[in-house]
């Protein structure tokens, strides 16, 4: 176009909406975090109180560990599922792919709800295996990790399946006819082609699991608190708004740093 700047005003309406409904509220979150009941004016008292509390440090630790563990699980499972579906398809593989796509649009809490029937104290697994075979699994961090793996594996599979569709089947056949074993074909031909998609999917999963709230809320384990849960409990359960805002600022810093890395790495062209 010959006069690109002439069209720039069209950008204003959407950007103003983002500014008004997203950035302006975030500004208030920062401002509120700098207030305290004990001291008037701008103060770091709430920051100090929250950052030194065991509750916050526990939540930070479990948020990071849970999301790292869930991401590793998703990458491993997602790669396995996608590879079988794409390169060793069985009758009905198309149906399974569509089911996985549908799962992407579902709310995450349904997995947590299902887990209470599966792994609760009177759940299916305990009844089937007798007594308390899985014990307190439902209220452990492992259960949250397992639920997140179930829900977020499709987020790894989707880009991976798209990347796999660009791998020429002939290359695989030729490699195999020359005597390469499946493991070698996978490592030398399939994996290099899929690596960027896998990294992008993994990075997105890490971001989404850091921010995950529904699963943790619905499982409701007392000992498993993550940062989003802490924002919720400070914000609308104990009405400690300044403390909720401190946790929110830290969470936003963490998530947007990760998102910046993700964009820099995978959206260079834009």
């Amino acid at each position, binding site marked *: 176009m010959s006069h690109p700047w002439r069209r720039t005003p069209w950008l204003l309406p959407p950007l103003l909406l983002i500014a008004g409904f997203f950035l302006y509220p975030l500004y*208030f979150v920062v401002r509120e975090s700098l207030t305290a009941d004990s001291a008037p004016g701008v103060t770091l008292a709430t920051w100090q109180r929250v950052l030194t509390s065991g509750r916050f440090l526990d939540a930070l630790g479990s948020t990071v560990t849970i999301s790292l563990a869930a991401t590793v699980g998703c990458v491993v499972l997602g790669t396995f599922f996608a590879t079988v579906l794409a390169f060793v398809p069985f009758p009905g593989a198309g149906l399974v792919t569509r089911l996985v796509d549908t799962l992407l649009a579902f709310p995450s809490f349904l997995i947590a709800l299902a887990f209470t029937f599966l792994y609760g104290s009177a759940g299916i697994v305990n009844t089937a295996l007798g007594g308390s075979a899985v014990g307190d699994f439902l209220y452990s961090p492992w259960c949250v990790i397992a639920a997140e793996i179930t829900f977020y594996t499709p987020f790894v599979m989707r880009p991976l399946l798209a990347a796999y569709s660009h791998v020429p089947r002939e290359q695989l056949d030729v490699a195999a006819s020359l005597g390469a074993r499946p493991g070698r074909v996978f490592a030398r031909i399939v994996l290099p082609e899929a690596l960027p998609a896998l990294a992008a999917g993994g990075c997105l999963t890490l971001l989404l699991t850091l921010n995950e709230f529904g699963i943790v809320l619905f499982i409701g384990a007392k000992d498993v608190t993550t940062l989003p849960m802490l924002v919720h409990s400070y914000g609308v359960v104990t009405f400690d708004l300044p403390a909720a805002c401190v946790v929110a600022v830290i969470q936003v810093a963490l998530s947007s740093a990760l998102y910046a890395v993700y964009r820099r790495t995978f959206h260079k062209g834009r």
Partner: protein
Amino acid sequence: MLVWSRRGRALLWTVFALVFVPVVLAPLAVLVLAAVAGSWNGVLPTGYTTGHLGDALAGEQVASLSVSLQTAFLAGIGAVIVGVWGALAVREAPPAARRIADAAMHLPIAVPSVVVGLGLLTAFSRPPIALNGTMWLVVIAHFVLVLAFAYSTVSAALERTDPAYAQVAASLGASPMRVLWRVRVPMLMPAVSAAASLSLALSMGEVGATIMVYPASWRPLSVTIFTLTDRGKVFLASAETVVLLATTVVILVGLGVATRRGRR
């Protein structure tokens, strides 16, 4: 084909089934079973009933479903319009403005929904704009959260369309408005439909921001399901979840059919 030996394939498929069934299939199946379970003392339900589904479609619950649908439609329509507008405007902008605007439109994806809710609660609970206790805070929260996804869907489709069509139309003398309405927007219709579907589905299942801002008079289904779960009414909660999923799927299929008809 990656694995050529029959035994290797059989082994791989067995492992696939052994992992896929308990991890992905079992939770979905259990939820549906719970929705129709009369009593559940054994491994499988000992009796079946449609009572929970009936309750899920009555009284308070159906009011909540209607709140969810209204919220999803309002937020979804807004997000699709602003998303299409944003995608077209970003595409036309000079590179520097384009990069910044694109990042700004994507930004809400990076922030947890609970924080979006907390922000709206803090910013709009005081003058000049006090919206707390109204349905609008819920609608705005959903709009902000789904906008990034709607924009992202449309903008990815726009990257793939050939600008030549619009250029040819313009060179033949069509005014910019006419090019927009007759060429560019129609070419984007599949993406618009996909964006609308995604927005609706995400909005129907949103919990994080909703639970921070919803007033008693405007309680979406996802929050109702949480309240039921919290009170131990897990069978009704499951039935309610099945109703939510079924409603979403019906709307999405309807949207898909409407789009295909429209294109003929």
